């Protein structure tokens, strides 16, 4: 056991946990995806209320997963936290702002005394629904395309561009992933609404929208995957740690690791099955296939970025400053301590599942919305 729990093993273990959290986060972005339809999908106020209440019962999961994702990154790879957050200031601030306005919008939008009006808070939900997934996608894409930073002798970050992260928005590959995540969130959002609301008219609108969003998702996702697999990747030498740009590096990572390959393919197949079920079979349970397909796909992308002699947060300005799991990680002691804490995650997942099922046992109806219970 002592032999197995080496520093390198724990670094890989924590990258696995980070990847899992990222996968779950993208799945849970269905809340944001659903919010992005708040103005276009409902035909009347009651339908809008049903949509908001259906999503509103889950927004905290997404929010908490995002916070935990950040906390886990801070604890396990603090140099990434310091470099990316302290350097790409504006991207992270934009993401933060989009999530702050979401948190209050559900609770306040329909309460008496709401001084700004329901429309303002619904706009907050819409903005979070569009910007949140898109910007997160762009930020994660820089794991493959690189960022403009250098680190000094004491690992203090110097960001090259005065745009502090916003320059990522002019890289087409980053935009591809941003748009892919946005449209995936929208597709998952539609599937979730289909699963949780009982309203025939709304169901018809959802099915029409599904096709219109599934196509751009597939196009952007496949274009992003193709771009990174056939492009250059940031290879980190296993012995010297020296980083260099190598053609087909991510493709080699994918084909060289059977586990990553299986994960990727299974995830893609599940997502495709969910689309087929939702669009052609009218299934209301497609969200589960889509969600459980999303998690492995995202995990496999993170594996491509972090495992297999790769720099997971490369510097396009100074290759030597690029971050690898070994360079950016916490100490052996901290990672080991955190590993014991992580053993509680299955228990957490179990009680979330139980509580989720208890609340979602029956679909939301107009009758329930007109009742006296707590609603948004």
């Amino acid at each position: 056991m002592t032999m197995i729990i080496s520093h390198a093993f724990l670094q890989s273990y924590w990258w696995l946990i980070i990847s899992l959290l990222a996968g779950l986060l993208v799945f849970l972005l269905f809340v944001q995806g659903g919010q992005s339809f708040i103005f276009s999908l409902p035909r009347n106020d009651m339908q809008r209320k049903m949509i908001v209440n259906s999503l509103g019962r889950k927004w905290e999961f997404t929010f908490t997963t995002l916070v935990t994702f950040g906390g886990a990154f801070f604890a396990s790879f603090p140099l990434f936290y310091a470099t990316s957050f302290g350097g790409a200031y504006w991207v992270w601030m934009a993401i933060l702002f989009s999530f702050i306005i979401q948190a209050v919008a559900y609770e306040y939008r329909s309460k008496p005394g709401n001084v700004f009006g329901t429309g303002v808070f619904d706009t907050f939900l819409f903005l979070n629904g569009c910007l949140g997934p898109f910007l997160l996608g762009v930020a994660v894409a820089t794991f493959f395309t690189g960022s403009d930073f250098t680190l000094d002798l004491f690992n203090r970050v110097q960001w090259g561009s005065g745009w502090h992260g916003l320059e990522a928005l002019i890289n087409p590959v980053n935009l591809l992933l941003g748009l892919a995540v946005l449209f995936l969130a929208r597709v998952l959002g539609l599937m979730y609404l289909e699963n949780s609301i009982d309203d025939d008219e709304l169901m018809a609108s959802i099915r029409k929208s599904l096709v219109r969003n599934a196509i751009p998702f597939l196009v952007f996702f496949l274009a992003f995957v193709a771009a990174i697999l056939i492009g250059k990747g940031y290879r980190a030498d296993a012995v010297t740690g020296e980083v260099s740009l190598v053609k087909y590096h991510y493709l080699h990572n994918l084909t060289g690791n059977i586990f990553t390959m299986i994960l990727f393919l299974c995830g893609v197949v599940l997502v495709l099955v969910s689309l087929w079920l939702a669009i052609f079979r009218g299934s209301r349970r497609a969200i589960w296939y889509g969600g459980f397909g999303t998690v492995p796909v995202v995990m496999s992308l993170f594996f491509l970025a972090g495992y297999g002699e790769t720099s997971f947060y490369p510097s396009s300005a100074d290759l030597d400053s690029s971050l690898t799991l070994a360079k950016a990680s916490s100490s052996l002691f901290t990672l080991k301590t955190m590993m014991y804490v992580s053993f509680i995650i299955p228990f957490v997942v179990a009680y979330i599942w139980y509580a989720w099922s208890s609340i979602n046992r029956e679909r939301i109806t107009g009758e329930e919305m007109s009742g006296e219970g707590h609603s948004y």
Partner: protein
Amino acid sequence: MIENFDLSLVNWSRGQFALTAIYHWLFVPLTLGLSFILAFMETLYVRTGDEMWKKITKFWMTLFGINFAIGVATGIILEFEFGTNWSNYSWFVGDIFGAPLAVEGILAFFLESTFVAVMFFGWNKVSKKFHLASTWLVAIGANLSALWILVANAWMENPVGMVFNPDTARNEMSSFRDVVLNPVAVDKFLHTVTSGFVLASVFVIGISSWFLIRKREELLARKSILVAGIFGLVSGLMVALTGDTSARTIAKVQPVKFAAMEALYDGSTDAGLTVISALRDSGERLGEKKVHEKKLKIEIPGLLSIMTTGQQGGYVPGLKDLINGNPDKGILSVSEMIERGRYARQVLTDYKVAKELGDNDSMATLAAKFEDKDFTDNYFRYFGYSYFEHPWQVIPSVPVIFYAFRVMVGLGFFFIVLFIIAVWFHRRETLEKNRWFLWLALFSIPLAYLASELGWIVTEMGRQPWIIQNLMPVHVAVSNISAGAVQTTFWLFAVLFTALLIAEVSIMVRQIRIGPKH
């Protein structure tokens, strides 16, 4: 050396973090305390089957929800600001500080967020007992999250359980147990959450008093006052007790902060406890800092010595001892600490240069120093002082801390009296007759918020200029971004938070006016 840092950036970054923390703390204490009050009330409903308790629980739960959402929104910013605005800090101590934050997410946030949905939406969907368990789990989750963030905060004030690694140029955790059981963390957690319980109790009693003044919802108001009065009284006594132990710990680990809290400049073996006083510029200077003298003071002679050291005639050092040094009492001058810190930093720089050059002999010699107890105990522990030019730069703002501390403590004792009277009048069934008390309770609500915020002002301003006591000053921790960028986000946050606060207060007031019949 200090002039190499962009102080405008440091100040705006501090301002932004303070702004976020102050707004965040407007909402968190109510969540901490009201969650338990809800749990007590719902327990009474489940045990007695009395529908009135359900109605009471649901009313306070509505107010809880309005407050909870904005607390969550402001909380996420704090976590991310460690990275965005304090990136040097994040790297220097992320190995230790990040762990409690991650544990907070895994252990507490999920508990809270999962069961808060059941608490709000599960009334007709799950069994009574499951719903009650959910309400309790929300309370436990909220307070557990406070535990972990306070462990992290306490570590910044008393860094323990770590070793410095010259290879990575950062501190690394060596004992999770020491980090969690840090005496500052234990005191801070108990003091902070119980102060949240006090605030929530004052809130419930104040709103209930308003109902009694308006002769509305009298049964709900009386029952709420009883629950909050008892809970508040027990919590208030705990606040006083933990405040005392907390002050003793501060005297040991942050003596400059303690001296500033007492505006104590000259050390004494018979130091008196100043109950209240006005501070005035004495004309004397400690470096470039003013020395204040106490006017119109009410003081209990000798009590500070006893409370701090546990014995009559115990020596309590003043700011002059702590800055200029006092060899008789074994206190090193800050000038000496600066010199020792500079030596430690030079050793680290030499090590990093040797590593860059591949000079293995020098590396081995220099690395051995970081294993040497004499070097770590007598030089490296003053590492942070190397960033200062003058000893007086380690003195925080004495008047702010002195007054904030006294107002906070005074209000704390006032709330204890308020709870005693509330329970007493309830017992004698004379609440409605004593309208002065009802008005007093109503106007005590803002005082509870004031006391709570002042507590953090004492804590955070009192430890300036350190972000990590003795190891890292605030100006070294800041991210390398432009002051203009931080200034922009500061104002964006200020406008957004203020707008959300206006919305929150407006909705809360309207919901209270509507009452539980809605």
